């Protein structure tokens, strides 16, 4: 390990992952893919957390990532349960068809 990677590179990767997750939320209409894109965004934010924690030599960033992962696990459990419930009632997980509340 003779060289180190500048923090800038990690930040750029993190921003790319985050904005690609946002892009996925915007362009896909399958609720499962939208969910996966949200996980991608969380990953991008976590990467920035760990990179900054490494840079400033504080452990708090890693602890925050730990909590973010826990909340993501809870979110996935509840969200997938919601998707299953929606699929049972509408027989589809296309978000365009979830328009019952449309006036």
């Amino acid at each position, binding site marked *: 390990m003779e060289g180190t990677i500048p923090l800038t590179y990690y930040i750029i990767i993190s921003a790319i992952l985050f904005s690609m997750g946002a892009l996925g939320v915007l*362009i896909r209409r399958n609720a499962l893919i939208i969910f996966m894109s949200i996980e991608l965004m969380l990953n991008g934010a976590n990467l920035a957390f760990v990179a900054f924690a490494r840079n400033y030599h504080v452990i708090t960033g*890693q602890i925050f990532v730990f909590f973010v992962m826990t909340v993501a696990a809870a979110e996935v459990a509840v969200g997938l349960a919601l998707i299953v419930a929606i699929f049972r009632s509408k027989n589809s997980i296309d978000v365009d068809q979830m328009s019952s509340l449309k006036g």
Partner: protein
Amino acid sequence: MDSMLIFFIVLALAAVASAVGLLVSRSAVYAALYLVINFASVAVFYLMLGAPFIALVQITVYAGAIMVLFLFVIMLLGAEKLPKGGSLPWQRPLAIGLSAVLFFEAGYLLLQKVQSSAVLLQPEAQINTMDAIRELGINLFSIYLLPFEVTSILLLVAMVGAIILTKQEKGAKE
């Protein structure tokens, strides 16, 4: 160009390519597998950043548990084939433009933060040692004990909520 940088670039390409694959794949199963590749490469990033505990939690929780849950739901719903076609013609270019704006804004703000501090990653002899994990554990169970306990309640509530949401009501359907 040293070997670490080459390794980093290869890994970054893997992460970005798997994210692109997630966005364009027509099959939900392939999308989930692309996401696993992405999680694994981010876990290697964590290892390079001296966070071995976070890297392993990433592998076990994200690439393991969460993705198995995703694949299970995909198989359960039989939704692996996604219908093609877009109803809104302007949706895709608008979304790409908006996320490009988001990328430049996020990158600009974060990089400004970096440059104002003007500190680069210091080369350290040993970053992947037990000391980092020990320090993490000590912090987690002393300063951050209350959030840790709240997290357990959150997980319990999520578990109960998932069971309640997916429970078939008696007599509602055959």
